[in-house]
């Protein structure tokens, strides 16, 4: 069943319909949260809290909108709140985060460079290049203008490339066409 149907049923008073929304989106939500908070338990907590927020706000949600982009805003708020409170450093293991083709060294290099980015930069780079979101979609999810998306993406990619060039130059040089 699609999200819009679950939302309409929920708004009509059938609260059990919320389960459908959780089951439709819990896996991508956890993957997205993990890329920001870089810890499996924290990501799970952030996703659960975001779904509780969604449950409370869903009666006011416009059912003509897509559910996940709206939910994503709640999710990232929860992730960044959690990051602000967290004192310890966490770095998720690559196999839990991404599947990268190529040699293990290349994958490790890219993973290391991604982990060296700030949470905001990593979120932006992965949403753009792994999930394939457009600048307009990124602007909606991150609640910033499209022009800001473009400049932040440029800086994040420059930083990522500088990290790769500094530590793993041969990997990129070999791949140049």
């Amino acid at each position, binding site marked *: 069943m699609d999200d819009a149907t679950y939302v309409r049923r929920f708004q009509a008073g059938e*609260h059990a319909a*919320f*389960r459908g929304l*959780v*089951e439709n989106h*819990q*896996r*991508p939500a*956890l*993957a*997205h949260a*993990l*890329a920001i908070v870089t810890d*499996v338990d924290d990501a*799970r907590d952030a*996703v*659960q809290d975001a*779904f*509780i927020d969604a*449950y*409370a706000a869903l009666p006011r949600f416009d059912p003509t909108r897509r559910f996940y982009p709206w939910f994503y805003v709640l999710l990232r708020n929860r992730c960044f709140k959690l990051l602000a409170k967290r004192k310890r450093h966490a770095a998720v293991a690559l*196999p*839990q*985060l*991404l*599947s*990268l*083709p*190529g040699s293990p060294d*290349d994958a490790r290099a*890219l993973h290391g460079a991604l982990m060296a980015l700030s949470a905001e930069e990593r979120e932006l*780079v*992965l949403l*753009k*290049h*792994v*999930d*394939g979101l*457009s*600048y307009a979609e990124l602007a909606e999810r991150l609640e910033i203008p499209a022009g800001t998306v*473009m*400049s932040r*993406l*440029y800086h994040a*990619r420059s930083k*990522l*490339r500088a990290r*790769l*060039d500094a530590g793993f130059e041969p990997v*990129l040089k070999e*791949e*140049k*066409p």
Partner: protein
Amino acid sequence: MNETCKAVRIAAMARDDGEPSPLPVTDIEAHVQGCAACREAIGAGRVLHGRLASAHRRMPAVSLWPAIEQRVTSDRGGRWWAALVALALAYKLLELSPIDLGIGLKLVAVAIVVAGFVVLRANPFVMPAEI
């Protein structure tokens, strides 16, 4: 890198991403032809773009519903009980007040009992059949 180089690199990135470029393509190409640093930076950006585009997120197999269900159920129940307790306190205060509310006070008591039925979603005064 000067401001022109930066503007050209941002515009080239947007074009490679399939987005509207803030600079005309002819301006980007004219600059890149004469700027080796921008040529290299744009080329390296494309390599990186290709590598990232071939990555996939791991989608963990999870079932968060049981934990979420428990939380939303307790939240919902908690809110209703808080409302009922507030209503009962208000009733008690009215009962103690010297103002005679007559039938109005009795209606408040009935409203509290009805609200209790709604919260419990059952009639608490019904005797179980096995007794």
